[in-house]
């Protein structure tokens, strides 16, 4: 009853909106931190400049809080005009159920297939040859952040790759510094695991396991070495008593810890602390061994709407989000990499430039959100949470991991 009433009311509101010819689109997202809000306002400004109205539907909390709200609104017949989701498989079932707008004609008109770099981003938006989302940025997770203060304190040179870092760890410990800061949460531990395996096991084994879901490689010698490296990293991080990633980053900023493995969003914390890349901290993509990054990130989806005017406006917004101007202003504010290879990002800082260079060289991988279902991803994160905080042996963890890969979908 109330849903019917609500949709009637919304219907009336929409009719009123169309009558005045400035179309209001409600856009939901979970970008609520300082830098994120500044970034999303760039999109809003660009949309408002076209004479339409952006109604900001920010949902506080992280994606795991916002996603159920967004999905239940779409399922409950009260869809927003556009919504952020991570591109990948989170919306797969909604698309299959016919709840998302097909953007193929917009994509063809805008030549997305030629401008989107890496092209795997567009593949993540594609189902059965049709395009359902607009990728807006790229976030990667294969980064280690090093504190120059901590290394200066221990009288050591700042490492330039993972092996040097491992070699320097005992000296750091002697100097009373925690070698590796780690927030005690499954997703952060999974990021560290992913980055270390990619660096130690090599890209070939990583591809076999993460893309082809080949459990034989997960049981193989490359992954044995990787699990042993992760076990060593676990010992380096044993004294790390924080839960949140930004608190762990803060340990690197203050020199309490030597390093942290975290996604590229960590540089926002360094920026707020007014630290300078190369002087106060260093960043090594691919842990300095394998210059490849994964290409997770955010995308906008447009739930199906009955009103043709709204549908037209949705398509207009889709084209706007990926336009060169919007991409530059949004990504500079957000600190993420743009999805287009053909725009000028010279204003970006050192770490972003490193990322852009890797993108230009084609060193890209699909992210966990793209290759695994949310179910498998959660199970892997649970395993990592268990492994990092217990004394589980590398062999046991590897066996459990291989079993998950075997059942993965």
């Amino acid at each position: 009853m109330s849903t019917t009433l609500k949709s009637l009311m919304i219907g009336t509101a929409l009719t009123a909106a169309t009558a005045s010819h400035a179309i209001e689109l409600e856009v939901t997202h979970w970008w609520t931190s300082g830098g994120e809000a500044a970034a999303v306002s760039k999109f809003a400004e660009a949309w408002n400049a076209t004479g339409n109205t952006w109604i900001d539907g920010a949902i506080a909390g992280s994606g795991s809080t916002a996603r159920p709200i967004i999905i239940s609104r779409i399922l409950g017949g009260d869809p927003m005009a556009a919504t952020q989701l991570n591109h990948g498989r989170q919306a797969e079932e909604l698309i299959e159920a016919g709840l998302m707008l097909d953007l193929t004609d917009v994509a063809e008109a805008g030549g997305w297939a030629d401008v989107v770099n890496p092209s795997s981003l567009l593949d993540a938006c594609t189902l059965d040859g049709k395009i359902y989302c607009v990728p807006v940025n790229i976030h990667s997770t294969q980064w280690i952040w090093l504190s120059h203060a901590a290394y200066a304190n221990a009288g050591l040179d700042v490492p330039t790759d993972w092996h040097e870092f491992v070699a320097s760890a005992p000296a750091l410990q002697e100097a009373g510094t925690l070698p590796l800061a780690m927030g005690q949460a499954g997703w952060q531990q999974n990021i560290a695991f992913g980055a270390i395996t990619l660096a130690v096991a090599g890209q070939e084994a990583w591809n076999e396991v993460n893309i082809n879901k080949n459990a034989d490689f997960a049981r193989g010698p490359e992954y044995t070495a990787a699990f042993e490296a992760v076990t060593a990293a676990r010992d380096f991080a044993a004294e790390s008593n924080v839960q949140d990633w930004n608190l762990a980053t803060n340990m690197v900023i203050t020199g309490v810890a030597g390093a942290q493995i975290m996604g590229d969003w960590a540089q926002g914390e360094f920026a707020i602390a007014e630290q300078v890349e190369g002087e106060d901290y260093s960043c090594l993509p691919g842990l300095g061994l394998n210059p490849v990054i994964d290409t997770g990130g955010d995308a906008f989806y447009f739930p199906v709407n009955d009103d043709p005017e709204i549908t037209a406006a949705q398509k207009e917004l889709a084209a706007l989000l990926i336009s060169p101007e919007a991409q530059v202003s949004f990504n500079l504010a957000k600190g993420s990499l743009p999805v287009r290879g053909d725009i000028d990002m010279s204003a970006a800082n050192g770490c972003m430039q490193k990322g852009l260079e890797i993108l230009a060289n084609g060193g890209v991988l699909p992210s966990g959100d793209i290759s695994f279902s949310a179910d498998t991803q959660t199970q892997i994160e649970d395993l990592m949470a268990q492994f990092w905080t217990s004394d589980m042996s590398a062999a046991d963890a590897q066996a459990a991991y291989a079993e998950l890969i075997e059942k993965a979908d």
Partner: protein
Amino acid sequence: MTVASDPPSHTAKRPRKLFKNWMAKLASLPMILTALVVFVGGTAWTVTYSFTSSRMLPKTNWVGFDQYERLWNTDRWIISIKNLGIYGGCSMVLTLVLGFSLAACLDRKIRFESAFRSIFLYPFALSFVVTGLAWQWILNPDFGLQSVVRGWGWESFTFNPLNDPNTVIYGLLIAGLWQGTGLIMCIMLAGLRGIDEDIWKAARVDGIGTIKTYVMVIIPMMRPVFITALVLIASGIIKLYDLVVAQTGGGPGLSSEVPAKYVIEYMFRAQNLGQGFAASTMMLCSVVIILIPWAYLEFGGKKRG
């Protein structure tokens, strides 16, 4: 009302019983429907779909007991069950013991009784989220209890339950007890006030000590109060979720996970409704297994005063 209250005596037996008090029955119809549709219907729907491989959306592709098999082979679920067992057992015993002891102390006609009562009951006015956050800070080794005691000069004092996987559940227990004991104390106090003054006089005449009177006479007389308290505590234990989310987030690692959190995370974060439903069905089963025999013994047998 008049129609309902004196039905014609010649009507057949069956409709007479059905239509007796029909207005009252009509008035309670919405409640009955709500209970049937929302509670019973929702439960049946959940149990049914726990036998499917539903992911983000409910679908009817039946997979038998697969979800349950996976559930009981998942370390996280086993850890959750164990944690709930430890928390539940300790919380049940300690809340009752502490609640009753506090109530008995207040019942000894002490000064400022109402002030103490307010102080003990006050934590109950806070939500579990606030409680969890407050105790997360109190138990934080860097600026909580440990650093305060160290500041007093006891340098080797160590009290850091939340960061040790083996003790984190007791850190939760402290917060849970702090929050919940006050209410139980009030219920117990009300029960104690309901005991006839003559019982105490009789006990004194017979020369029975105070503690012995409490244990042997008063507690058995307070049986209904204890059962109320027990139900309140038990329901609080089963639905333990927000305290964990606010205080530890289930960490470190998986060491403070609880079943309710497993259900929520598999339904929404992992987008695996079937698995979440299977877990919630198991929670329902555990409640039913405990409650039904007990309810039968308590209410089904002979009537108690």
